[in-house]
């Protein structure tokens, strides 16, 4: 009886799991293994002859100045995006929670959240327009504030910041919602007791809300890091798209993911692209582990 129960459990469980196991193996683990395989072989596009070249692809990759340039660009992009998204979304979440009554809260929340569920491609089209040097809203705002107009996407200096403003806009809602959920978990009585004791707002924030919110903040930082480091669609479509010089001008917006895509599908260097994708994966994994390690010291888990 006991044994038949065990066998039956296994049969039922693996039956339930089998569709998931099938798609995970075929479309996830096999490609992942294949990625490693390709990056250690020389890959001919037309000839089927593949030869083992060991670390040759990585050596060639590291000898490419453009690869290092793309790493620096991605690093710059990520380093700006992490604090910008985290601080701004935390600020909006705090204000939303404080200044708005529950009845209207839903409307504000929906408004802030909305951009996140719209297709990046469509909204990037809008932002390209906003950054149009002649007709765009961005320069209209700048000149109204008596600031000099900028060339935005046409310049090496401002193209990436323009993309950042779009990305920030698109992702903000997600992080606001996450922070609101975190804030809802801060025990209200704790805050109220502190208020009764006459604690000031800043003090309540730094001493109670911030530490209790730190797991949420950590989660947001990880999410922002991973999303920024592999950002593709908004950069690709804003800087040219399928028919024109994406990643430009002068490679100023060529991030890691963009370079992987172009190496594989514009230049057909599949093995080099695979090596690059492997490095991309390794970097994201390392960043996550480092942040996890730091968070174990800093995050206050109840």
């Amino acid at each position, binding site marked *: 009886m006991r044994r038949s129960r065990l066998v039956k459990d296994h049969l039922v469980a693996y039956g339930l*799991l089998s569709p998931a196991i099938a798609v995970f193996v075929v479309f*996830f683990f096999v490609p992942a293994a294949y990625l490693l395989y390709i990056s250690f072989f020389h890959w001919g596009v037309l000839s089927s002859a593949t030869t083992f070249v060991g670390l040759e692809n990585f050596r060639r990759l590291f000898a490419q100045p453009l690869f290092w340039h793309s790493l620096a660009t991605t690093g710059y992009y990520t380093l700006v995006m992490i604090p910008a998204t985290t601080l701004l979304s935390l600020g909006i979440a705090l204000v939303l929670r404080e200044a*708005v009554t529950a009845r209207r809260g839903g409307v504000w929340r929906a408004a802030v959240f909305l951009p996140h*569920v719209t297709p990046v491609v469509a909204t990037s089209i809008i932002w390209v327009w906003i950054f149009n040097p002649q007709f765009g809203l961005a320069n209209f705002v700048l000149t109204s504030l008596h600031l000099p107009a900028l060339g935005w996407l046409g310049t090496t200096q401002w193209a990436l910041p323009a993309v950042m403003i779009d990305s920030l806009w698109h992702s903000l809602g997600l992080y606001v919602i996450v922070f609101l959920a975190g804030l809802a978990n801060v025990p209200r009585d704790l805050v109220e007791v502190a208020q009764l004791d006459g604690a000031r707002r800043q003090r309540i924030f730094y001493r109670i809300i911030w530490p209790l919110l730190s797991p949420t903040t950590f989660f947001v930082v990880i999410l922002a890091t991973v999303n920024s480091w592999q950002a593709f669609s908004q950069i690709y479509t804003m800087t040219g798209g399928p028919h024109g010089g994406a990643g430009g001008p002068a490679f100023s917006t060529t991030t890691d*993911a963009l370079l992987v895509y172009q190496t594989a599908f514009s230049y057909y260097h599949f093995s080099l692209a695979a090596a690059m994708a492997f490095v991309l994966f390794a970097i994201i994994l390392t960043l996550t582990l480092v942040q996890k390690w730091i968070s174990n010291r800093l995050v206050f888990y109840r």
Partner: protein
Amino acid sequence: MSALPAVRRRGARSPGSGRRSSRVKTTIGTAALLVAAVYVIAPIYWLVVASSKSTSQLFATSTFLPPVHLSWGANFRSLFSFGSGEFKYWLANSFVYAIVTATLATAVSTLCGYGLAKYRFRFRKTIFGLVVGSLMVPATALVVPLFLLEHDVGLINSYQGVILPMLVYPFGVYFMSIFAADAVPDTLVDASRIDGAGELRIFWQIARPILMPGMVTLFLLSFIGTWNNYFLPLVLLGDTTKFPLTVGLSTWASDLNQAGVSQPLYPEVLLGSLVSVLPMLVLFPFLQKYVARGLTFGAIAGE
């Protein structure tokens, strides 16, 4: 699940601080919120306005004001007729990709999540670990081998080729296994067994209704993700009639940047973008709470 963000139910004013300073702060807060709201809403408002203009009006009239003559009708006609009507294929394709992927991905993840949560079997921990581990792998990294593999077996340029990889939904499995562990009590499952119900019947008649809210969340997240997905179909599709809206629109928009294109497609690109945003715009207010529950899940589960 207390994952739903709750705005403070009681008055915003705190009992300890003075009334006036609190009111000033609330005003500053509201002002900041208004600025944020403009940042968030202005681009979408602009899209609605701009898509109603003809090409000449687009450059002649003030950016933020509605046009003298609404050209939505004419724009719609040319949107659907341009390039032998490719836009209507893209629109239909986007719905096909999103509905099929969301349905199948939800089914696959629910079965797997329920199995992981409610049965004890060998390698259960290993499988769960692999699922959580695959959450960390960036999709971007797998696109190159995926393309080569699909190329070898002839899946490139097919609907299945795009849909099947999107059924790999580690978040869905993770979410559903935690959701099922919480929502479906073991005692209920055991009681049904004693009553003589088979395992499949327990899943279908007892667990499935309880898991429904979680399934709705997964369906919506997967629908939104597929509808908005760009990278995967861009890589795996070459045939323009199989494009989803995102890839199709990006080819039109990309042509705008090129010199020497015979007909500037401004109204079509803008109206096309609006059409691609519209389902989210219309559905979102109703579905917000399900979507928010899914997206905030990681933050809460991490605690």
